[in-house]
């Protein structure tokens, strides 16, 4: 039945080949704590005005190793177990953008393309001839260019901004599934264990079957 496997494999390959759309930039998100802490800070500075992350609490930021004084400054009177709620009220957002900016806790997993989509969207702003901004990835978006990448002058400044976008995306990817690092670490152990176990079971099977004439 090896033909069967070949057919299935071929089918899978062709499906994934068709499903890909080229437009998005591919990035490698960071998973180390210092990078995530930087991303969290960038997020607090650039996105917190409008966006909520209701599944992420101030205490989660502390767990990334961000300075306690800094977190205390952000949360003010609120307890450390308060989620990150947008500074702008929903009513003000409705009045300004005609919609409430979406919660970003799970955003890195809520769009096709995941982190690549998010990153490409953030750096996808450009200046139109009439002076307004457009976006390559989400042309009709109501979000004003949050990083100001549409109006940067030099290549160096642009690279810096891309790095900010990347670190914010890394932070949001972490926020969407905070146990990713634990998960993959455990995964190596589990799979290593299973490989050894299967090897032993194979020997046992061979041994038992060798009793047959």
């Amino acid at each position, binding site marked *: *039945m090896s*033909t*069967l496997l070949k*057919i*299935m494999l071929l*089918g899978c390959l*062709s*499906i994934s080949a*068709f*499903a890909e759309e080229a437009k998005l930039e591919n990035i490698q998100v960071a998973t180390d704590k210092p990078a995530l802490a930087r991303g969290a800070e960038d997020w607090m500075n650039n996105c917190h005005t409008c966006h909520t992350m209701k*599944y992420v609490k101030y205490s989660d930021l502390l767990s990334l190793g961000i300075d306690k004084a800094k977190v205390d400054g952000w949360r003010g009177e609120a307890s450390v177990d308060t989620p990150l709620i947008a500074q702008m009220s929903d009513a003000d957002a409705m009045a300004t953008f005609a919609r409430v900016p979406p919660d970003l*806790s*799970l955003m890195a*997993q*809520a*769009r*096709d393309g*995941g982190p690549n989509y998010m990153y490409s969207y953030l750096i996808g702003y450009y200046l139109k001839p009439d002076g307004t901004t457009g976006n390559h990835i989400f042309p009709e978006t109501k979000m004003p260019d949050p990083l100001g990448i549409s109006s940067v002058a030099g290549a160096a400044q642009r690279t810096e901004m891309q790095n900010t976008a990347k670190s914010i995306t890394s932070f949001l990817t972490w926020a*969407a*599934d*905070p*146990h990713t690092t634990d*998960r*993959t670490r*455990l*995964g190596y152990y*589990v*799979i290593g264990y*299973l*490989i050894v*176990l*299967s090897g032993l*079971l*194979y020997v*046992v*099977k061979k041994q*038992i*079957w060798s009793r*047959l004439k």
Partner: protein
Amino acid sequence: MSGPIINWIDKRFPLTSFVKHELTDYPTPRNLSYWWNFGFLAGIVLVLQVATGIFLAMHYKADSTLAFDSIQHIMREVNYGWLLRYMHATGASAFFFVIFVHMARTLYYGSFRAPRELLWWTGQGLLLMLMATAFMGYLLPWGQMSFWGATVITNLFKVTPFIGENVVIWLRGDYSVGDDTLTRFFSLHYLFPFLIIGAVIVHLVALHTVKSSNPSGIDLKDKDNIPFHPYFTAKDLYGLGIFLIVYSVFVFFMPNSLIEPANNIPANPMVTPSHIVPEWYFLPFYAILRSVPNMFGGVVAMALSVMMFAFMPFLDRSRIPGGARYRPIYRIQFYLFLLDMLVLGYVGYKPPTNPSIVVVGQVATLCYFASFFVVPFVSKIEERWLIKRGLPAGIMELMEREKRDLENRTQEHRRRKGDLV
């Protein structure tokens, strides 16, 4: 088995004889290949699903205002909650994968033919229950795809003659999918796996009555049968190890590859996702549903497409043993059928906006049903042709033996009933 405790039990309960009959003395064809591991694997996945499901249910809240949050609570705050959830979500896909291979094995080797029709039909029943369980489970995270998938599928029951509207409301518990739908789906999602366990027991009783088929025929001489334990317990456990490795790769390294991104957005009855797709294991049937322009026709075609397997014992008229192994034409039919399934799966995944995709889907739907309808004719012609051409040595003998075996079974049965002394 011996020892005072076992003795004590044996006087009151047939423990030793049961273990002997079903395991240590249970005759199993020695030539079973690894394709025969999948029934056992299905049983293990069933246990995994029940085990993880019960623990998830301790933290899950079946309330439309709390369900989505409670999933995030499990993913973030419950100790190893993420592991439970990813195991359960991946497990559903694993279950379908294993069952599909199990069915493909049965189709390939013709194991559905007499005397295994009831075994095959209980399997068909298991497939339907598995589909129902997975469908109801998918509503529970209360994401956009959960909500709209359930809306689309329950809406199909509108085509029930005369009482369609009422059936839909009865299923949903409301005019649209909402809190009442969620609570009843949760209740039933908890119930169904236990019905499946019951049905698996029936499936296994039937298996142990007719015994396993094998790659080269249906009946084997006694010397080719070996006890299930320890030979097949060892082989099954090794297969389980390999299966768990693949399963773990998905659970630990790519758990989100099987979860639609839109399901990470809370259900919103006001916003329809741009493209509603079911889980991968429903895609071929979903493609058939959409390929028929008329809704009633589509629903009938989809229901029929799942049920077509049940007709196989009637459709296949060939007496050549070993299924596709000695039947070149049936083998081609088998691979074409798999190919058609893949095409349908692809069509089901794509939005129906592209007219050429729609045409491909319609052709593939026709091929799907045609591949069943041609079986009676092709199998008979193929049998005649193969016999005329001359079967490999031993095959005719096998056929004779199978015929005698069937007669023996009938006699045995009548003896047991007391008709014959």
